[in-house]
């Protein structure tokens, strides 16, 4: 069982990201579950979404308290939310950041990855310059960093499920996949 937690802000597409990742894992033959932290979805407010992936039936209906992967879609959340709470030893952290990873201290020993998903989203005109929709870009980085699904599977899901600007979203996903740095990626 792989348990993934997304931290974002209302409007960034964290809930959709958790669904798209579930969908991609399902296409590869897994059972999946995707859900938001209940009842707090407002534009700009911190949003948490979850994905469970397993080759066996996913029966656990509790929230995810000890994730294998944590994704942070807005670095300003680090001041408000304990994003690494319960993260398993060795569990990967993927950040949307324009900064060099050497300058970031997450306060834990876990491997950290970073990609400038906001810049990629702006480049492909996803959302606005002040409020880019970074979900498809961050997913490209997640897939490269974790290998949770094949990038081809994810790109197919993005192409099918993106509610608008399908090709732009596909390009953003691919670009983030190529540009993500950290951990074992040279």
């Amino acid at each position: 069982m792989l348990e993934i937690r997304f931290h974002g802000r209302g409007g960034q597409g964290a809930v959709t990201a958790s669904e798209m990742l579930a969908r991609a894992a399902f296409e590869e033959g897994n059972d999946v579950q995707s859900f938001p932290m209940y009842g707090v979805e407002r534009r700009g407010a911190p949003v948490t979404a979850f994905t469970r992936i397993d080759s066996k039936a996913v029966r656990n209906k509790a929230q995810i308290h000890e994730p294998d992967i944590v994704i942070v879609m807005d670095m300003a959340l680090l001041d408000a939310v304990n994003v690494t709470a319960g993260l398993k030893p060795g569990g990967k952290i993927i950040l949307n950041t324009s900064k060099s990873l050497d300058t970031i201290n997450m306060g834990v020993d876990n491997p950290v990855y970073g990609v400038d998903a906001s810049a990629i989203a702006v480049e492909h005109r996803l959302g606005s310059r002040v409020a880019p929709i970074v979900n498809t870009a961050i997913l490209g980085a997640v897939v490269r960093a974790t290998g949770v699904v094949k990038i081809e599977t994810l790109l197919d899901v993005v192409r099918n499920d993106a509610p608008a600007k399908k090709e732009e979203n596909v390009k953003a996903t691919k670009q983030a996949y190529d540009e993500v740095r950290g951990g074992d990626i040279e």
Partner: protein
Amino acid sequence: MSKTVIVSGNFAAAYGAKLSRAAVVAAYPITPQTEVVEKIASLVADGEMDAQFVKVESEHSAMAACIAASNAGARAFTASSAHGLTLMHELLIWAAGARLPVVMVNINRAMGPPWSVWADHHDALAQKGTGQLQFFCESNQEVLDSVIMAYKICEGSDIMMPAMVVEDAFILSHTKEPVEIYDQELVDEFLPPYNPEYKLDVNRPFGFGSLGMPDWYMDFRYKMAEAMDKAVDRVEEVNKKFKEVFGRDHGGLIEEYKTDGVDVLIFTMGSISSTSKDVIDELRAEGHNIGLARLRTYRPFPAEKLRELTRNVNVVGVLDRSYTFGHMGDSAGEIKAALYGHKDLILKNYIVGLGGRDLTPKILKNIMLDTLSLQDKELDEEVEWVDLRINQERWRR
């Protein structure tokens, strides 16, 4: 061709109504049920669902519209939650008395105050005496399947009672899981068109809902009680038939999970049953002889099945995701009443997860270990509230 999609419990409910060819849908939106209404409205607007969507000003009116539609011979559907459901109360009783097989989905939400939109069975259990059949679901697939089965059960000429399919707020309603959407032709074969013997028809006039003098009223009520008794067998028959056609078995009255020859049995309802199955596997791997019984059908209450199931069991733990302010949790009280005079066993009731409080595998395991410990020691408390702020340390460790 059937297809598997990843959808919420609310979408599963909407697809259940669509596949059942509900002809009239009247509903009023309320969190966390709103998506059911939105989805059906868009299916109707897009021409994908051939139904009359009636916008109403309250849940009371929603059920009133369903009653009228059903009385006119149309298959009727609605959905609600918590305060909406309780506003509907009068009409739930009316639909049953009028012997109308209206099917609704209730998304279990806690009652305020304090305001809460999260999972709790109090709203549905407060309607247990209205004459609705009640089916508590543990997965989104089961929500869809139960809507189809509910029509099949309720429209039987010797049943003719309304039903409520129940799913937990957010845990099912807003969680996306793979759900198979069946081929319409297959559902049509399983569920033929609704064709009641008596309906509103200007060419064949009858009186409906008239006065029942004291020398008649009681006999009408007796007929309803008889129908509920017959529904016990009907639930099992329809469940069996459903399995033959669609290949899925949700358990009919009570779903048994690894109950063969167990010493200790845990009773659950709704989505916590699903998580509990993982915990049962873990405990069995550790050598404990424990099984799970999921109360799927709460009305009619499966008393006979319960007695069979507990024949060789000595200790029972009952989890209630609600408190209905009696002397114990609702299902624990029902189970005790059904067993009294038939079986003497130790029963401990756990009040859990009210207002959406999360039930982790760890907490559920601690509950089951507590139940297991009653094999060798005296019953400490008949009813215990689990994971309160004052006792969290014990249950979360």
